[in-house]
């Protein structure tokens, strides 16, 4: 057990799995699989496992993702890290091949593959393509792929173990804004299930549901609101596919107030699905959605910071709802 960052926690899981399964491979493009953490050994998958199992490739994210899929079909667990610039390059092969292949083959295809897909959206100053946060929805509509979005180092490690051991393909979203999070993470392997939301804080007046890069600001807002005497329940989706409806319905059944928070674009952001699932089950509840507007993120920090949901805006919406 030690304080570890999100990425160190992930690579620790990957390292363990690669040590224990000599078939496993890793493909990267710009970001070498290297992580360091105070008081812990540097992890460098490339030097540890060699350049046949861990390969640095050119700018072709669709090939990276496809290659991992093919490796998994040949019996090698496979993972790759797709930088946010290439986040949608492999979309078609994940949506139209990987997501359908088990079903299309009547269960014959086994695909122990994990695509770590970086998401951005956290940094002002980078326009459009370099600060968008939108992949969650695209991937969550795809059937047959488990789309997860851990928001803490602990979950990141446990879900990576679970993902690498799963025979199902996993889109593992990594909001780069979580890079700076640090928490106590066990050294030994453990699994966090790929189908459960987490109640981060219990409360009775209001349920706030968010995920991934939205969580830090939600937790900040919840703290403020709590200080003002509001009893806030905070749910971290963690899993977008299959979404854990039960946790959502139970919570809003109790609070009768649901605020969803997406860093993703408003239209068909994860919050839309959350509200739709709850609204068909819970009667008489009230709803509000906070999200990034349906506009690309502009370069100008003045514009961007105003558009991005943050703790203050979230708290404001919560006050209006309760």
């Amino acid at each position, binding site marked *: 057990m030690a304080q570890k960052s999100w990425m160190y926690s992930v690579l620790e899981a990957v390292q363990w799995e690669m040590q224990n399964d000599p078939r496993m*491979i890793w493909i990267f493009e710009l970001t070498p699989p290297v992580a360091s953490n105070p008081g812990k050994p540097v992890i460098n998958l490339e030097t540890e496992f060699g350049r046949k199992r861990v390969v640095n490739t050119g700018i*072709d994210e*669709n090939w990276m993702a*496809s*290659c991992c899929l093919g490796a998994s*079909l040949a019996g090698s667990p496979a993972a790759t890290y797709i930088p946010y610039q290439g986040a949608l390059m492999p979309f078609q092969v994940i949506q139209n*091949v990987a997501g359908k292949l088990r079903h*299309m083959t*009547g*269960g014959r295809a086994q695909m122990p593959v994990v695509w770590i897909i970086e998401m951005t959206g956290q940094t002002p100053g980078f326009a459009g393509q370099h600060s968008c946060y939108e992949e969650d929805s695209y991937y969550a509509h795809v059937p047959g792929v488990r789309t997860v979005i851990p928001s803490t180092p602990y979950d990141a490690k446990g879900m990576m173990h679970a993902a690498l051991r799963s025979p199902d393909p996993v889109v593992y979203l990594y909001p780069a804004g979580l890079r700076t999070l640090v928490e106590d993470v066990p050294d030994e392997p453990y699994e966090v299930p790929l189908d459960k939301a987490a109640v981060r804080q219990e409360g009775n007046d209001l349920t706030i549901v968010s995920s991934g890069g939205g969580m830090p600001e939600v937790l900040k807002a919840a703290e403020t609101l709590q200080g003002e005497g509001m009893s806030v329940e905070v749910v971290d989706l963690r899993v977008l596919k299959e979404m854990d409806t039960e946790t959502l319905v139970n919570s809003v059944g109790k609070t009768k107030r649901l605020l969803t928070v997406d860093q993703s674009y408003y239209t068909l952001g994860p919050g839309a699905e959350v509200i739709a699932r709850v609204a068909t089950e819970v009667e008489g509840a009230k709803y509000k959605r906070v999200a990034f507007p349906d506009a690309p993120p502009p370069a100008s920090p003045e514009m961007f910071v105003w558009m991005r949901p943050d703790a203050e805006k979230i708290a404001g919406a919560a006050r209006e709802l309760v």
Partner: protein
Amino acid sequence: MDNTTKSKTHASESDDAPRSESRRGFLKIAAATGAVVSMSRTRAFANGDIGYHSQELPDDKLIDMYRTALKIRWHERTQADEMLSNPDYRGYNHFYAGQEAVATGICAALRNDGPFDQIDLAYSSHRPSGHAIAKGVDIPKMCAENDFRSTGLNGGYAAEMHLSDPDVGFIGADGMIGPSMPIATGSAFAFRARGSDQVAVVFGGDGTYATPHFHSALNNAKLLDLPFIYVLENNLYHQYAHYSYSCPHKDIANAAAAYGIPSRVVDGQDVFQVYNAAKEAVDRARAGDGPSFIEAKTYRYYNHWGAPGATAGELGAFGYDPLAITSFRPEREVRAWMQRDPIDIARKTLVDWGVLDAAGADAIETEVKAEIAEAFAWAAQQPFCQPEDGLKNVFADGAVPARQFG
């Protein structure tokens, strides 16, 4: 007149190719004279620079290849007849007839049984029935699958375009043009990473050339020296467009050669030449010497999809294809290619080599027809699927909820 029974005479009458008693001699002389593939002959010739691997094969292996090609052919013909004449039959196909030598020759050079971590893997296309049979899938189960039966190869989920049987290394068909090539390189990547001598093969049409995946697959296969073989079946058309609409090369193999990948054009109508090329490519891959590209010049006897323009009991489709709308392939082109039928060529060669006599060849054909007829009969008796099963197999465990009722 049945072409196959008269092949020997026919060959001696019409061919001006050099002759020899022995297989080796026959091929050597063909090579020495630099004889090349020619549309005007019914006899196939070795490309001068191809090794003579087929001739070294034991008779039973050669006969197996002939039998496999025949199975593919009779599966095609029987299914076409079903589609054309049995109103209860629901299956469909992208027929492979005319291309049998390619699948057969390639798969004959692969390891098709054994533990999953030792066999070679084949990725097929939207036109998979030939590849599936050549790789060794169970034909009755495949027939049942093509007719949406719950006991089919893939439980009725797949039908023709997604046939898959990992047990024989047939990773499967794919309805999309392009994605399978990079995916297949991934299997090759895994083999190399594991230090395995397995090989990954992908079958793709001339239509795959234009896809962006062509570049991705070849470039990375070359960069990483992957044990990967790209078999491009150039049947001249992608759907209704001649390949010159999408490719500036006459030989697509030249495009692959530009990556530094050993690439060759092979007569796709001669199963033994295809085998020769495959053998070299497989040997190269197993030795760790990287990828190969094989362009097989071939032709399909039916239209792109289904049996439009075909007549029950007859091989090939010459008539109008209502899907083609503005472009048709000339009937004469079809007939010209049928003069160099891969089944005929295989048979003639084996008879010529003394591996089979006409009676033996006929007997095999009779056996194969019966086997295929039985496969279709068995398939037709199989149960339909349970509706609710559509919710299964989305993930490895469990079923997803029904949502269609609200």
